């Protein structure tokens, strides 16, 4: 990958969406509905170029031998830090990054085609496409980043533009809160990530992923430091990927346009967290503690958010919680050392999750904008394409054989078992049951039974510009997993994905990974759990609806606990938000009273005499002057204990003089 032209092609993958953004922003008013062609065309070209990159790293093009070292790498010198080193900007596309590029471009393309119908007639149509474009571009930039600084750059860009997405319908007050909350939680995570980056940079003198990994291997970083830094990076990833304990922002952040949620959940912002962990896998594998934490957090998150999803009343909320849960699986897989299974799940998830959101969008489109399941019902006949696509996506999500989700999820669960983490294994397995339960509960409520509103009674199938992407994605949700059928399954096909996307030989060596064998027993158990979940959902929604009400009435607390997301919001509110606000309010009062309170206690006489002779009404100038001297005193104490007597005496003398001056004022 040395010629300028081919490098330009790679750079264009990232650059084109940004160009589309600029065009849509600058000429949005003139373009109007044509903005969709700009955005779609640019991302289509990016997709084609991504295919080129994939073909290149796969060795299908001349001039490159397939194998581990066949990634696309080039960089330019960016900022010189003098003696401290330098930063560079560049591209590093290995096998997994090439696959990821295609996922992002493809999902973005589907979303953009679909949105042409969904957003039709919206006054901010061009702005919508601008947002989608910059969001896609930022994610693509993150995918190809070879070092932490550049990754952080695009990471923040992804976070910043998500503010635009969450706040797209700024007319709604809920959108305000969601956007702000998402932003602040992400800032916390980003700060953690930044700390991690700086630690790595300080210890190794480089920010490049590979450089840090080899420096750590060579022993430049102490194992404790390595673990700490890795965990900081992981905390950053939990923020973006909405993992426990920073998952709280995601369920509120459903206020943006639904197709954009598809992009966020399937291919961009939320993926960026797990992608970063997979990208820095060579660093993570060197710290067993960090790996363990990743696995535990992943399994716990998967379980926790699946229980939350069961009680939700809004179809979008269910899907949102399912995203958190599914990325919990990915984290579990990565933490257990099952790199291929984890990233395979990202790939499958991207397809069925984007489909689910597009379906939720088309449901909302059909019933007049709401995604509350209370207004749906009986839509099976009226919207057959949506219904069947939903069933396919649901089966895939639940991990039912032979849909795509099955292949990756099964591998992750098996990895947990193989590693001997039986608690995590049990959590993961139980989550399969929960997953099937919540998603099919949603499907049955939406599509079966009687229509619950006038809109649902009159609903018709959505226009074909929306159904076409749905059909494509539904087809892929069935077959996408077939590229990764493990060898042990007995079919005479190659495990294409498994062969192509492998952890680096370095990671394999460090983990002492033994290739997994496909276990029919394990697969059978996991599918069985899924089927039980579907059966239970059918029972409580369709066959015996009175059961659900009875359970809800018997355990109202449990229901409220799940519905409110384990009361995390409440706890965080009490723990962080309220104290912060109270502190802010307290210091504001303090400020408004012109610093009077504190100082008047110390220099009472000053204030008293100053009060009477004060030329201007508010504030207390002499107090300020006094504070200056007080500060000098503080500094003096810090500076030297040995001379403190002399210093204190002098500063006190000063203060007395100032008091006298203040009194005269």
């Amino acid at each position, binding site marked *: 990958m040395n010629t300028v032209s081919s490098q330009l092609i790679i750079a264009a993958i990232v650059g084109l969406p940004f160009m589309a953004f600029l065009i849509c922003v600058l000429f949005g008013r003139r373009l109007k509905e044509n903005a969709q062609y700009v955005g779609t065309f640019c991302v289509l070209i990016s997709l084609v170029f991504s295919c080129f990159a994939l073909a290149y790293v796969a060795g299908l093009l001349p001039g490159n031998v397939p194998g581990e070292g066949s990634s696309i790498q080039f960089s330019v010198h*960016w*900022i*010189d*830090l*003098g003696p*401290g080193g330098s930063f560079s900007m560049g591209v590093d596309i290995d096998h997994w990054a090439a696959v990821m590029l295609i996922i992002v471009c493809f999902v973005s393309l589907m979303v953009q085609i679909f949105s042409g119908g969904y957003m039709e007639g919206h006054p901010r149509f061009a702005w919508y496409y601008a947002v989608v474009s910059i969001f896609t571009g930022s994610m693509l930039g993150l995918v190809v980043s070879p070092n932490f600084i550049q990754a*952080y*750059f695009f990471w*923040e*860009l992804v976070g*910043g533009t998500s503010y635009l997405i969450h*706040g797209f319908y*700024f007319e709604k*007050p809920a*959108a*305000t809160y969601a*956007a*702000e909350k998402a*932003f*602040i939680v992400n800032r916390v995570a980003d700060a953690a990530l*930044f*700390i991690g980056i*700086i*630690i790595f*940079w*300080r210890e190794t003198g480089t920010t490049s992923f590979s450089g840090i990994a080899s420096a750590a291997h060579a022993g430049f970083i102490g194992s404790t430091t390595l673990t700490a830094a890795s965990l900081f990076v992981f905390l950053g990833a939990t923020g973006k990927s909405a993992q426990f304990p920073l998952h709280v922002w995601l369920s509120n952040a459903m206020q943006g346009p639904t197709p954009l949620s598809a992009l966020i959940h399937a291919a961009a912002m939320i993926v960026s967290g797990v992608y970063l962990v997979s990208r820095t896998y060579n660093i993570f594998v060197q710290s067993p503690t960090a790996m363990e934490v990743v696995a535990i957090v992943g399994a716990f998150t998967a379980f926790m958010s699946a229980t939350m999803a069961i009680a939700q009343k809004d179809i979008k909320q269910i899907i949102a919680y399912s995203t958190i849960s599914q990325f919990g699986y990915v984290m579990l897989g990565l933490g257990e050392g099952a790199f291929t299974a984890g990233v395979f799940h990202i790939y499958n998830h991207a397809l069925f999750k984007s489909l689910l959101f597009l379906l939720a969008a088309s449901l909302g489109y059909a019933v007049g904008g709401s995604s509350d399941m209370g207004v749906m019902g009986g839509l099976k006949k009226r919207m057959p394409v949506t219904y069947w696509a939903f069933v396919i996506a649901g089966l895939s999500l639940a991990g039912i054989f032979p849909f795509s989700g099955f292949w990756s999820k099964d591998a992750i669960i098996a990895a947990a078992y193989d590693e001997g983490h039986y608690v995590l294994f049990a959590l993961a397995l139980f989550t399969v049951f929960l997953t099937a339960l919540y998603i099919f509960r949603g499907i049955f409520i939406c599509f079966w039974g009687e229509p619950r509103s006038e809109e649902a009674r009159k609903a018709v199938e959505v226009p074909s510009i929306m159904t076409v992407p749905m059909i494509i994605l539904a087809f892929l949700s069935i077959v996408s997993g077939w590229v990764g059928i493990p060898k042990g399954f007995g079919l005479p096909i190659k495990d294409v994905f498994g062969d192509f996307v492998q952890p680096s030989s370095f990671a394999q060596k460090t983990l002492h990974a033994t290739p997994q064998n496909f276990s029919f027993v394990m697969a059978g158990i996991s599918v069985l759990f899924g089927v039980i979940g579907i059966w239970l959902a059918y029972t409580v929604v369709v066959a015996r609806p009175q059961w659900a009400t009875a359970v809800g009435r018997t355990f109202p607390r449990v229901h409220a606990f799940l519905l409110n997301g384990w009361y995390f919001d409440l706890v965080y509110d009490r723990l962080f938000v309220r104290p*912060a*606000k109270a502190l*802010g*309010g307290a*210091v*504001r009062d*303090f*400020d408004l009273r012109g*610093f009077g309170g504190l100082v008047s206690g110390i220099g009472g006489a000053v204030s008293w005499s100053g009060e009477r002779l004060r030329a*201007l009404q*508010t*504030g207390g*100038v*002499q*107090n*300020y*002057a006094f*504070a*200056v*001297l007080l*500060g*000098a005193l*503080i*500094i*003096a104490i*810090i*500076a*030297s204990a040995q*001379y403190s007597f*002399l*210093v204190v005496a*002098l500063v006190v003398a000063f203060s007395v003089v*100032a008091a006298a*001056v203040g009194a005269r004022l």
Partner: protein
Amino acid sequence: MPYSAETFVGLIPEIIAAIFLLLVLMVGVFAERAAGLVSGITALGTVLIFASSAWLLASGFHGSFFGGGYVVDGFALYFKLVVAGSAFFASLAATRWAQGTGDATEYLTLILSVVLGALLLVSMRDLFGVFLALELATIPSYAMVAFDRSRRESAEGGMKYIITGAVASSVLLYGIVLIYGASSSANLSGVAKAFSSGHASPVALLGLILLLSGFAFKVSAAPFHFWTPDAYQGAPTSAAAFLSVAPKAATFAILLRILVEGMPGEARVWTAIAAVLAIVTMFTGNLFALRQSNVRRMLAYSSVAHSGYVLTAFAALQGGAKAEAVQAVMIYSAAYAAMNLGAFLVIDLVGEDTKSFNGLIRTRPMVAASMFLFMAALVGIPPLSGFWGKLWIIIAGTGSGSILTYVTVGVLVVNTVLSVPYYFGIVRNMIFEEPVAGTGETKGEGPLKFSVYALAIITVLFFIIIIPLAAVAGSSGLL
């Protein structure tokens, strides 16, 4: 003969500033109606100062004059560029407001006086020269703060500023005198000898402490910051914008020079002081800014917080990260100048109440987008300018090898998160609230809007601008 041709070349920026100072005053007096002409001359003057400083910097000029008491090196020229650049935008932005008062000449003269003082300040290597230049930059700023006669707060702010300022100046001067007494030299190289042993006399240490206290006041570090919110809230917006940027950058620069060139032997003491000051300042600034309903006051407290960030770089001036710490101060000053100046100028366009920002994205989208960028930059989000300043400070701080500095850097990171709610409170108001009536455009905003947009572009493109800035800062000549 005390002068040579080289002296005049080295002093070109200052000479231009002095000439334009007189020129503006005279033109303003004799052509009372031509307020636009006066503004134009001021802007031209700042451009010429900028150009001449840039030319000196590009030609690698280095010289020391007046018995080593005045030095023109890369470090000084860099800050001259920052001062001149912010003066350019401030004088453009001041045009409309100053013409409204009828005293545009005086206002612009005051700006140029501050510029002259700041230009001299950054080159001083003599403590008494430092004091003179600092006062030359400060005294006009008292008048600028109190310039708005239509608002009562302006006089109030000016009053508070001048009185506390006088106390601080006397403290500073006393410190300088004590140092002079202890080292029997006011020249920094002479001072360095008195501080070199590591066992400076108590008098010299007391001088150092008082000097730092005086400077802490000038850069509004807590607990010396009390004048800042009152003064900035009262001052005309362009004055607050300018004063929070140019003289402050120059003051940080000279403090850095004094500490690095004059007192390297006592680095242990003053880095500790800087660290504690930085921690207190960051928390004070951000906590007080958290619930302000007046944007100007909020930005005043934010400027306090940002002083704390810069002081963190001072705390990092030890161990293996000295060069990076110096660079951090330089880069932060430039980054902060662009974003803070812009944010203040937007207030001038929109209004100082938080509510006047409501729904700005609908009524004036371009202004709202600019404000969004300034706020995001002040938070420190890449690729905007504020990020680069913070990055350098953190890099320097983590390389210092001192536990206290590590703590300070940790506090910095915490404070960055702490500052998000109030900066994005503005953004939320702009995007999500219903617009209030009467926030439309008014006449004569052209220069002001030009400044805002130009600063917004600088803020965005900082990831490119940083390349030459880093190169210049890396070869500044200090350290």
